[in-house]
C-alpha cells in the first residue's frame, strides 16, 4: 500500500495539463492505448463492414441470378402449359367441328356441298394453326380436307391428273407438310 503510494507520488511528479484538466503520464499512456484500441476497432469495423458489403453484394448477385433463373424456368413451364392448353383447345374445337361436319355430310357426294358446310368453313377459319391437325387427319383418312388445306395456305401441291384420287392427293399434301416441318 505504501509502495504503490510512492510510485503514485513519483508518477505525480510528471503531470500534463490540458484544457480538460490535469492528467498523469500513466493516464496519458492509457489514453493512447485506448485510442489505438478504438482506432483498431474502427478499422476492424470498417474492414468487417467492407467485407460484409462485398459478401452481401456477392450473395445478392447469386440470389438474384438464381431468382432470375427460377423465374425464367417458371415462365417457360407456364408458356409450355399455355401452348399445350391452346393446342388441346384447338384440337378439341377441330374435333367438335369435324364430328358435326361428318355427321351432316358423310352421305353427300357433292364435294361442293361438303366443303360449304358451316362446320367445314369454321375449320378453315381456324387458320394456319390447324394445319398440323389437318395433315394428321389426312393420314387417318377422316375427311376430304384438301379444300381446307388449299384455302388456308393458298397452295395446291396436287397434280391435275390426281384430282379425286384420295391416296395420291393425301400423299401430295403430306409431302408438302413434311417439307415445311408441319408434321
Amino acid at each position, binding site marked *: 500500500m505504501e509502495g504503490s503510494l510512492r510510485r503514485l507520488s513519483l508518477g505525480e511528479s510528471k503531470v500534463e495539463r490540458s484544457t480538460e484538466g490535469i492528467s498523469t503520464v500513466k493516464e496519458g499512456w492509457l489514453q493512447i492505448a485506448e485510442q489505438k484500441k478504438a482506432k483498431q476497432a474502427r478499422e476492424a469495423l470498417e474492414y468487417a463492414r467492407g467485407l460484409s458489403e462485398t459478401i452481401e453484394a456477392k450473395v445478392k448477385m447469386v440470389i438474384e441470378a438464381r431468382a432470375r433463373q427460377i423465374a425464367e424456368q417458371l415462365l417457360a413451364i407456364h408458356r409450355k402449359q399455355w401452348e399445350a392448353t391452346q393446342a388441346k383447345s384447338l384440337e378439341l374445337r377441330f374435333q367438335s367441328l369435324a364430328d358435326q361436319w361428318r355427321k351432316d355430310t358423310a352421305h353427300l357426294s357433292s364435294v361442293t356441298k361438303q366443303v360449304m358446310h358451316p362446320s367445314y368453313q369454321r375449320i378453315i377459319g381456324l387458320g394456319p394453326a390447324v394445319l398440323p391437325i389437318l395433315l394428321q387427319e389426312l393420314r387417318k383418312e377422316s375427311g376430304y380436307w384438301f379444300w381446307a388445306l388449299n384455302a388456308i395456305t393458298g397452295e395446291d401441291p396436287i397434280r391435275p391428273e390426281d384430282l379425286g*384420287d*384420295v391416296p395420291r392427293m393425301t400423299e401430295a399434301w403430306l409431302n408438302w407438310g413434311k417439307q415445311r416441318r408441319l408434321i
Partner: protein
Amino acid sequence: MSSAYLEAIFHHLRDDIYRITSPRTQNYNCIAWAADETHRKWWPIGAHWPPNVPREETVAAFILAFATRNYELCDNGALEKGYEKVAIYVDPSQTPTHMARQLSSGRWTSKLGDLEDIEHQTLQQLEEGSYGHAIQYLKRPIAVDRKPSGCLTVAALSLFRSMWGLRVSTA
C-alpha cells in the same frame, strides 16, 4: 342387312328391300361408282372430271361427263334388255346430288357419299331429303367397251349442244 343410321338419313329406304354391299370409304363417290370407278372421286369441282367437259354442277355437264363413257339419253329407269342405265338425282335447284347405276337384275346400286355402297330396289328409296329426285336417265349398250373413250364423240356433242345449249370445246 339394313341400317338404322342409313334409314335415318334416307327415310324411304325402309319402303323396300335394300342391302349394304361394301364397307365405308372416302376413296370414291356415287358419280365415280355410277361410272364404274372405285379409285377416285368424280365431281366437277375439287375432284376428277372428264377432260373437255364443263366443270359445272349442272345436269347438262353430268350428261356430257357420262357421254365420255358412251352413255346417251333415255326416257326412264326401266330395265331394258341389252342396256345398262344410270340415273341422275337433282335437288330443288336442279343441281345434281347423286347418281345410281342399274344392275342386270333391274335393281340399283348407289354409293352413299363417304358411306357404304348399297343395292336398292327402286330409285325412289333414296329420293327426298338431301338427294332430291331422280330426273334424268342415261343408257349405254352392255356390250360397249367399258373403258372411257376419253373424249366426247362429235355426235354426242352435237346432240347435247342442241339440247342444252352448251358451248363445249372439242379441241
